[in-house]
C-alpha cells in the first residue's frame, strides 16, 4: 500500500536535520535510532565544541533534537534497528525491532543517515602504538578531556606541556585501504590545538601534516588564527613512529621545510583519526540492497551521478557521513536536500 510516510534511519546530525526538514515541509516522518538517545556521534563520543562557530556540541545537538521530538509530525523510536526490508519507491515494508519489540512499518521513502565511525588506530600502518602507550590518544579521546577542561597525560595525570597532533591517521593510505581524505580532521585538530593553547597556556602544540585541508572559511576562522594568534606550530611531514623515551614519547619524522629528519620528545601525542563507515552504515547497505563504494560508504550520486543524496535505489536517499566523510555543513545541507527529495517522491506516489 502506498504510503506518504518517510523513514529516517539514524538520529545523528543528518538524521535529525532530515526529520526536522520533512516535518517543516508538512510531511510525516518516523525516525529510528539504535542508541538510547539522539545526537549521534557528537554526543556518543563526547564532542566538546563544534568547528561550527565554536558552538557547544551538547547544546547544539539538544536544540536540534528538541526540534524533532517536539514536532507532532515526527515519531521517534529509540533502541530501534531495521531487521527486514522489501518493496519499492512509494511502498516499502520495513521490519524493525524497537525496544526489543518487532514492528512492521509501511513507508513511501527512506533517508539513510547512519553515519561514520572513527578509524581504529590499532590498524595504522605506522607504528603509533596507540594500544601500548597511554599517552598516545586520539582526537576523540582528547575531545572528551577538553570538554571537562582537564587535559592530562593518561600515564601520570600530569598536565602535558608538549603536545603533537599527527594528521591523516587512517586516511589517504593505500595500505590501510582508506585512500580518501576524511575532510574534517585538519579542522578538528586545529580547533583542538587552539583549545589546548587556551586551557594550557604554557603548552607548545605541534601539528604534523601532509597537507592542511582547511577548505572555505576554516582558513580564516581556524587555521590562520591557530598559527597567528595561538602560535600553534604546523610542521609539514608525517610522523613514522612513536617510541617511549623515559616517561616521554619520542616521535620520528621528517621536517620537510628544513629538509632534515627529526626526532623529538612529546608529553602527549594525539592521532587525528579519520572516518570510516559505521557498522550501522555497512549493515543497512546490505539490508536495503544499496550499492556501496570500495570503502564501504553508500554510493551517492543517484542515477544522474550528480545527485549528492541519491542512492542506487529509487525512493531511498542518503545524508551525512553514511555516504562519505562529511562535516556538519555537508551533513545538514545533504539532510535538507534528502528531505526535499523524499517529500517530493512520496507526493508523486500519493498524487
Amino acid at each position, binding site marked *: 500500500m502506498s504510503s506518504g510516510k518517510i523513514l529516517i534511519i539514524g538520529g545523528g546530525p543528518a538524521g535529525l536535520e532530515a526529520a526536522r526538514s520533512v516535518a517543516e515541509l508538512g510531511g510525516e516522518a518516523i525516525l529510528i535510532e539504535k542508541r538510547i538517545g539522539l545526537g549521534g556521534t557528537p554526543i556518543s563520543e563526547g564532542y566538546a565544541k563544534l568547528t561550527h562557530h565554536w558552538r557547544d556540541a551538547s547544546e547544539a545537538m539538544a536544540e536540534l533534537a528538541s526540534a524533532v521530538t517536539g514536532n507532532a509530525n515526527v515519531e521517534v523510536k529509540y533502541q530501534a534497528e531495521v531487521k527486514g526490508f522489501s518493496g519499492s519507491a512509494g511502498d516499502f515494508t520495513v521490519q524493525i525491532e524497537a525496544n526489543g519489540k518487532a514492528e512492521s512499518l509501511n513507508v513511501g521513502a527512506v533517508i539513510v543517515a547512519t553515519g561514520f565511525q572513527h578509524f581504529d588506530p590499532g590498524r595504522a600502518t605506522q607504528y603509533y602504538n596507540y594500544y601500548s602507550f597511554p599517552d598516545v590518544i586520539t582526537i576523540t579521546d582528547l575531545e572528551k578531556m577538553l570538554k571537562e577542561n582537564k587535559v592530562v597525560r593518561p600515564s601520570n595525570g600530569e598536565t602535558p*606541556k*608538549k603536545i603533537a597532533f599527527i594528521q591523516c591517521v587512517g586516511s589517504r593510505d593505500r595500505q590501510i585501504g582508506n585512500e580518501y581524505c576524511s575532510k574534517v580532521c585538519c579542522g578538528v585538530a586545529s580547533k583542538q590545538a587552539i583549545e589546548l593553547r587556551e586551557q594550557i597556556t604554557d603548552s*607548545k602544540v*605541534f601539528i604534523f601534516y601532509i597537507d*592542511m585541508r582547511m577548505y572555505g572559511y576554516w582558513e580564516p576562522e581556524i*587555521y*590562520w588564527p591557530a*598559527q*597567528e594568534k595561538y*602560535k600553534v*606550530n*604546523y*610542521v*609539514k611531514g608525517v610522523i613514522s613512529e612513536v617510541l617511549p623515551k623515559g616517561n616521554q614519547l619520542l616521535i620520528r619524522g621528517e*621536517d*620537510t*621545510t*628544513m629538509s*632534515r*629528519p*627529526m*626526532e*623529538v*620528545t612529546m608529553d602527549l601525542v594525539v592521532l587525528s583519526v579519520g572516518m570510516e563507515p559505521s557498522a550501522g552504515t555497512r549493515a543497512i547497505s546490505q539490508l536495503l540492497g544499496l550499492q556501496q563504494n570500495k570503502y564501504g560508504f553508500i554510493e551517492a550520486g543517484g542515477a544522474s551521478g550528480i545527485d549528492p543524496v541519491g542512492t542506487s535505489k529509487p525512493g531511498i536517499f542518503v545524508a551525512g557521513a553514511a555516504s562519505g566523510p562529511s562535516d556538519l555543513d555537508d551533513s545538514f545541507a545533504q539532510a535538507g536536500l534528502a528531505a526535499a527529495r523524499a517529500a517530493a517522491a512520496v507526493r508523486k506516489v500519493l498524487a
Partner: protein
Amino acid sequence: MPTTLENWNPGKAENRHPEVAYEVKERLFLETKNDPRYHEFLYGCYECGICVSACPTARFYDYSPKVIAQAMAREDVERIYDIISEDIWNCAQCFSCVRCPRQNNPGGLVTILREVAVKSGLQETKDVLQGYSRVIYKVMLKGNQVSPDMLQPDLFADWGPWVQNFSANMPIWKKAIPVDSIRGVTDAAWKVDRKTLLELYTIWFETGSMEIIKEVDEGLYDLLSDIMQEELEEG
C-alpha cells in the same frame, strides 16, 4: 645542551654553534621579535613556497626565505642563530618575496635580523662585512660609487672565479680600451660637491650610521670619523 621545552626546535637535529650560549642566541631572537616592524612582517606560513620561487638568491645559494619565515614563526632560537650569523647576508634585499599570500615579508625579517646582527657586533657579521671596508670608505667619504678594481678579490667569493681575473687585469683592460666615459671612473669616479659631502657626513653622524660602523669595524670608524669631523669643522 639537553633538549628542553625552551630550547627544543623541530627543524634542527644538531646545534651548529655550541660555543655560543643559548642566552645569547635567545637575546638576538628577542631583539628581532621586539622590533616594531616584526608583527607586520610575519603572520603565519603554510609552506606554499612562492617566496622561494621568486627569490633570485635561492636559485644560486643554499638560501630560503621560507625557512627564515618558518624559523621565526616557530621561534626556533638555534636555527635563527644560524640564519643571523650566515643566511641573512645571502639575501639581496630585493623584496621579491613580499608577494606572499599570507602577507609575510621574509626580506623585511632579514632587514631586522641584519640590523640586530650589526648592532650586536657578531663576529660572523664582522667577517662577512670585512670586504666592504673599502666600499664603505669610498661611498661614505667620497659620496660616489665603487668600481670593479676596488674589490678585494679574496673577500668577494660570490663574484665567482672571474673576480681574480677582473681585479688583476682591470687596469690593463682600461688602458687597452680607452673609453672616455669610463676613464677616470675606475680610480676616482665623479667628484661630489663639497657642500653635498658635508651634508652627507652630517647625515651619517645624525642617523647613527657611524655608530653601526663602529660595531663592525672600529678601525674604519676611527679613520672615517677623524676625516669627517675635521672637514665639518673646516666647513
